[in-house]
Every structure is written in structure tokens, then in C-alpha cells.
């Protein structure tokens, strides 16, 4: 299983771009990288997923370098409502208990 590490917390101001990096040095060939967002008093919810290079959706972008040993979640022009905990998950595309959540990064967006 690929162990993951993330910064514990980050602060940003409204309107800024925020980049949160997850390290997963021993990621395996079959592993995908998924990011989840969790607001207070709610369960996590899916944001974005990728395997390599760059993926973009209406909420975020995900950058994965060629060696895939890290990934960066990019949130463009954050607002106060983006204040949440962000988790990366590295998991095998196949069945089994081959997935692990990172410790989470608490993002605080300030006015």
C-alpha cells in the first residue's frame, strides 16, 4: 500500500489559487489518485480523480507528474465556502483492500 503524506493545514485568502500536495512515494502501477473534500459535520465527498498528467473538472484540477510520486490538487480562486478538510486517496483499480486515505489537509480560507 502506498503510504501518503499531506500538510496538516493551510491558510489562504479569498480569490487566491490554492495548491495542496500529497506525497505517495511508493505508488504502484495500478494505483489511481482520488481527492475528497469534507465539510464540518458531513462525510467526505469526491472531488477529482486521475492517473497521470492533468485532469480538470468544474471544481478543481489535479496535477500528477510523470513519476507519480506526488499529486497536487489545485483550487482556483477559493471562496470562504472552500474551507474544509481535503483528503487524498491512493488506491488500486482492482478489488481488495488496496487503498489508503491520507491524513487530510485542513484548508482555512480567510476573508
Amino acid at each position, binding site marked *: 500500500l502506498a503510504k501518503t503524506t499531506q500538510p*496538516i493545514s493551510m491558510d489562504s485568502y479569498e480569490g487566491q489559487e490554492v495548491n495542496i500536495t500529497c506525497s505517495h512515494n511508493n505508488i504502484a502501477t495500478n*494505483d*489511481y489518485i*482520488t481527492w*475528497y473534500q469534507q465539510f464540518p*459535520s*458531513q*462525510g*467526505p*465527498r*469526491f472531488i477529482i*480523480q486521475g492517473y497521470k498528467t492533468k485532469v480538470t473538472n468544474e471544481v478543481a484540477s489535479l496535477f500528477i507528474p510523470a513519476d507519480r510520486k506526488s499529486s497536487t490538487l489545485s483550487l482556483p480562486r477559493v471562496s470562504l465556502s472552500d474551507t474544509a478538510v481535503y*483528503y487524498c*486517496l*491512493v*488506491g*488500486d*483499480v*482492482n*478489488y*481488495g*483492500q*488496496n*487503498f489508503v*486515505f*491520507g*491524513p*487530510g489537509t485542513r484548508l482555512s480560507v480567510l476573508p
Partner: protein
Amino acid sequence: DVKVTQSSRYLVKRTGEKVFLECVQDMDHENMFWYRQDPGLGLRLIYFSYDVKMKEKGDIPEGYSVSREKKERFSLILESASTNQTSMYLCASTTGLAGGPGYNEQFFGPGTRLTVL
């Protein structure tokens, strides 16, 4: 709208009590999971199930058991609650089609905050 519901948002129990946490999903998902969430430790997998009456231990199964008698329902049981089981408990589910839980989107319930006195 997809839904994972958990029986209680808040629960207070005493040491030694038997505690049942219930989770129900309406998406006809094959896979269901129980996690506990503690500050600084993230999400840790307790048990999961790939099918009715099937269960597998996760990373921290000690002190817990599970039951899955119907596809939509997955129960977490604390046989004899202890203070170190005070935590947030999260249930999740995923489809079993086209990939495993490390790949398919996990849908989470709102969580149950359990306090054991």
C-alpha cells in the same frame, strides 16, 4: 440523489454497553465500509463488505464486529464499548462494477459522533 444514511448523528453510551451503529444505502451498491475518524489520524478502515454476509477486516478491527444481512444495510457493533472508542464513525459505499473501492467513488454518510463515558 444518492443517499447513505446513518442511524444517529450523536450517540452517548457508557463503558461496557453493546453499541449498534446502522448504515443504509439506496444505491444498490455491492461494497460498504466502516471508518473511524480521529483528529490527526484521518480516516481509518475498520471493516468492509463486498457482498451480503461477507466481511473483511480493515486496519483497525479490534473491538468491533459487523453484520450485513441485506445488501443495503451494514451494521457496526461495539461488543463492549470503551472510552478509547469515542470517535466519529463514517459509513461509505461504492459500486462493485468496473473496479475496486480504491478506484470507484465512495459515497459517505454524515457520520455518527459516538461518546463513550
